[in-house]
């Protein structure tokens, strides 16, 4: 960093820039207050004051141009945390980016007013602030991406739960109704969840109901047979129910060998078969 710029920044720092705090609230009010209702006036005032105090710290640091300094890191963290907060409240990343840009203009304008220096005539200072704010916008985007990733992971975990609703319907009998499209990744999820559950519950019989499955391809049908085989290898028996005519036709045309697989027309037939294997008799109560 050149000496001249450092001196200019120091000169700015020596100003009583605490006075400009109200001016910096304007971008916050425009982007997070009024219609969007993401923050109230008190929060916006606190936000502006915190930003200003961090900026003062940076400008007053040994080397204000050092992107690895603690002061700059604190400023980055401020924007990352703001980004998280706005996204959590239902705001959009564009609003945080626009706020950051407006904050830059407001800061420059306020400093110009306070110092009486026209920054359009002092390109080095203008360049300094632009590069600082560019980095801060990057911090906003990084926080946005982190938040998106976290949301996606949570959604995936939820999907995994709902994609494999395994229920122990009777002691030693597990049911797994599969609804929707079975693709390879979902079939692998089903396999993992089901085999772990068989081991955990010591299930004797597993009934897999495919009534809600409309489409199946070659790879998935092989995976299905693999699930049945793996369940049998663990010492349980597997029953597949509710194979729709289109699925049955697809399995035959794909040359899938169903000879070692017990199938039943409906889930209730599958349960009856499971009970029969376990020696359980379900009957109407005598009137």
């Amino acid at each position, binding site marked *: 960093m050149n000496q001249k710029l450092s001196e200019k920044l120091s000169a700015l720092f020596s100003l009583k820039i605490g006075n400009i705090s109200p001016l910096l609230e304007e971008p916050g009010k425009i982007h997070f207050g009024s219609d969007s209702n993401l923050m109230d006036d008190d929060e916006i005032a606190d936000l502006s004051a915190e930003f200003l105090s961090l900026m003062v710290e940076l400008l007053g640091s040994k080397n204000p141009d050092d992107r690895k300094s603690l002061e700059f890191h604190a400023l980055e963290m401020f924007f990352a945390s703001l980004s998280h907060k706005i996204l959590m409240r239902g705001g959009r990343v564009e609003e945080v980016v626009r706020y950051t840009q407006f904050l830059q203009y407001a800061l420059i304008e306020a400093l110009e007013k306070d110092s009486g220096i026209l920054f359009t005539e002092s390109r080095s200072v203008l360049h300094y602030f632009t590069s600082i704010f560019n980095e801060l916008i990057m911090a906003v985007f990084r926080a946005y991406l982190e938040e998106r990733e976290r949301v996606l992971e949570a959604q995936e975990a939820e999907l995994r739960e709902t994609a494999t609703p395994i229920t122990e319907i009777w002691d030693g009998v597990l049911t797994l109704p599969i609804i929707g499209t079975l693709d390879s990744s979902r079939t692998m999820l089903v396999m993992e969840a089901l085999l772990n559950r068989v081991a955990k519950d010591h299930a004797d019989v597993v009934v897999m109901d495919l009534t809600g499955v409309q489409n199946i391809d070659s790879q998935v049908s092989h995976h299905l047979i693999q699930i049945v085989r793996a*369940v049998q290898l663990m010492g349980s028996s597997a029953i597949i129910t509710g194979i729709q005519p289109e699925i049955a036709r697809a399995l035959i045309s794909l040359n899938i060998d169903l000879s070692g697989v017990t199938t039943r027309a409906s889930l209730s037939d599958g349960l009856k078969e499971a009970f029969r294997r376990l020696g359980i008799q379900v009957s109407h109560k005598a009137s």
Partner: protein
Amino acid sequence: MIPGLHLTRIGREAFLLEPSRSLNIRDEARLVEHIAGKLQQAKASCLYYDLAELALIDPVYYAWLSALARTMAAINVRMICIHMQPTAAFSLSGFIAGNPPFETALDIPDVHFTGSPV
């Protein structure tokens, strides 16, 4: 005594085989002869092979299990693999085409438990 091979009588005609990591399955012929000899001597009709410690069954291990199961069938002993882990079942189901030459069960039925080491 063969390292890695623990054979325990668990009933009048049943035995439990618990292999440990030191079991050298490359020494297949010697192992099979030893196990078959013990079972014949004890007039066993059933051998439970415990797979609880095995996280993965690859083609080499499957070949060993198959060889032992076929030998057991030759001396009229049922071989039942128990406690197969989900990961092992997954790996095995990926490469075998039909039914394996051994039976599988979740656990040993309660009727067998009175065991003493052989």
